[in-house]
């Protein structure tokens, strides 16, 4: 199985990708997921994270099959 990682809006443009896929090896935090793909790049201030389409803090643990997402503050409405 694997972890799907998604990026949206300005963050997607900044890192130049909309998606990453990570083979699931061990429990890790959302913060670790970010650094796995964005080595040496700190998460931009105010970045929001979601796991399976619910908001989650960066130190939440993810499990196999989860969808993780990173995006800037929302600006709808």
């Amino acid at each position, binding site marked *: 199985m694997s972890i799907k990682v998604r990026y949206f*809006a300005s963050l997607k443009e900044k890192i130049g990708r909309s998606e990453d896929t990570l083979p699931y090896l061990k429990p890790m935090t959302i913060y670790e997921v970010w650094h796995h793909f964005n080595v040496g790049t700190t998460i931009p201030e*105010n970045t929001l994270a979601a796991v399976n*389409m619910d908001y989650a803090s960066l130190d939440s643990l993810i499990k196999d099959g989860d969808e993780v997402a990173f995006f800037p503050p*929302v*600006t*709808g*409405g």
Partner: protein
Amino acid sequence: MAIQIKTEIFDPFEEIQAYQKKKFADIKSIGASTIFIGTMRDFNEGAPIKSMTLDYYPGMTEKQLDKIILSAQQQWQLIDCLVIHRVGHILPNEPIVLVAVWSSHRGDAYEANRFIMERLKSEAPFWKKELLDNNQARWVIKNTNGYTSN
């Protein structure tokens, strides 16, 4: 209760009327309906805006809107709610968002409507990118809190 994400322009009044007709043409317990319509302005943060692109997170957007409406239903006595949000390419004057709330009493209808809008603006994953008159594009950085400011 319904949530719709629309990629094409919509007429808020047609949508409300169609929904009312379908859902409760004859519920005579409705005493109060509140409607909020957010439309695109041609000016924002000191610059004229030509158009806008609204991005979203399909699946999560609907999930968060569901939760927001559920939370409103738990706090106020509501008969029904309709939330429509536009995505894609939008021009000035076009509607972006519609929130309609039906209740027996006006206090519930007013408060729930505003609550849904404020939560939508702070939690529903939508992102606006503005195309300025000089053809430069910029992402809107953040929404303001509508309870405390404009």
